[in-house]
């Protein structure tokens, strides 16, 4: 089992605790949702791809004392993002409106 997997299991266990009213999410696997949504195609754990690496995002959030609410904005608003070559593009929107799931994904990202 990879470190990431262990992480997501611990996380989903934590979420399960928070979401007693919605037992359907007792099995949220944040990493799986992240990848099902193609997020990993632009956000690598350590390497800069089209988007910044998870490590870089986590470090930035820590430094600027931002939290998962800010991260959720990025994955739900479809805001323009600026690319390395100066052009702009709409950011991907995650395919769930469930805030608990979005929070799980955001936390998973920020814990890299």
């Amino acid at each position, binding site marked *: 089992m990879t470190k990431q997997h262990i992480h997501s299991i611990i996380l989903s266990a934590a979420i399960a605790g928070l979401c007693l009213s919605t037992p359907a999410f007792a099995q949220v696997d944040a990493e799986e949702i992240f*990848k099902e949504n*193609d997020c*990993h*195609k*632009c956000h690598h754990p350590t390497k800069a*791809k*089209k988007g910044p690496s998870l490590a870089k995002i986590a470090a930035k959030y820590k430094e600027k004392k931002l939290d998962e609410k800010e991260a959720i904005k990025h994955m739900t608003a479809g805001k323009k993002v600026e690319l390395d070559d100066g*052009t702009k*593009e709409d950011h*991907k929107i995650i395919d769930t409106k469930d805030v608990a799931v979005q929070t799980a994904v955001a936390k998973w990202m920020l814990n890299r």
Partner: protein
Amino acid sequence: MKKSALFLGVSVIVAGCASMTSGPQAIDWNKIPATKVTLFYPGQSSYEWLRSEAHAGAAKETARGDACVSCHDDPKEEQRQGSKILRGNHPLEPTAIAGKKNGYVDLAVQAAYDDKNAYLRFQWKTQNPYPGTEHQYLRFDGKEWKVYGFPKLDKVVQEGRQPGIYEDRMSIMIDDGKVPGFAQQGCWLTCHDGQRDMPKQFTKEDVAANALLTALKKSDVRKYLPETRGNPSDWKTGKSVEEIARIKEAGRFVDLIQWRAHRSHAVGMADDGFVLEFRNGDAGKDMFSGNADSKTHQPKFMWDEKKVGYKSITADQLRKGDHFLIREQNAVPFDPNAGWKVGDMVPDYLISREDAKGSAAENNAVASWKDGMWTVVIVRPLGLANSDDKTLKAGGVYNVGFAVHDDNITTRGHQVSYVKTLGIGAKADITAVKLN
């Protein structure tokens, strides 16, 4: 019945491999490292789709030539992609094949070479509990001989009017570094809208009105490389035959070797072709040819009853033996007055090692299917100097793409790999080991 066909099959391989006593059978494959390559179902992810907004967030990057794996690099990426496309309701797979087919195939690849040949060994599990060695037939309906059995993406199979029958295949595309973009985007350079079973499929009228395809005497649209078109995203914009000849001379084409479980395996071979302005066959003659007479629509050959015990088979005998019709071994000219009954079937293709000639006839293969798994060793001579071949030589590193057609299907119905490198004794994703 099974025995006789099998016996003949083995003897031809032995005869054909007389020069290979030091060849694939003698190699201890346990000593050669295996590389796992995951192939995935690409659906209709054409050159054009990849450069469109539908490939969200990746159109521009793909158009400028970025490598697919610069984004698609997750350890489980191919599994995810193939499964997603075949889950149902995916824009890249419009047919009901979704849900009925494996999204990915794990292919084990091993490679070795000696002074004469490269030996490429492939193993993969088939979806069916039988090897896909059957191919389409000519069936007597009481009046006429009609094609029986079609690939599973065809409407007649989807609507249940015909059974799915099509040979399994293992294909390799080879580039020696000369084809612009192949090292980054591999096989996807050759796959376009307009081709068979792709979006905006050609019409007969389109093809008949097309200068390049009429010059080539072709009646459909198949794989092509971007450089052969004025606009790579429009198959209709073919360059002149002279310009295309110059591209070929400069070596900017890819080799395409296909091992076919019916039409080449029966005689211990793999076919040899190349992709440039079309999916061409190499010069010379293939090991297979159509068995239907173009005028009478009757078979040209049938089985030799004296040798195999039957002239034809019926549908209930499918998958119960190797039903290969081999010109020099078990075939005799068709007798229209042999008392044919409704349902009698003769293979739609005639196979022959003896008739195969020239550059088209240079790849050999030894294959077997056991416990749900194909093991195929393709034997490719080193140093081929034909103008339609990529020359493999010791020390060379090549860009390669692999594909498997499994479960009675053709065209896009394959699982494909992202581009890999193959080194003949040189360091690469797959390194061929020198044999002593």
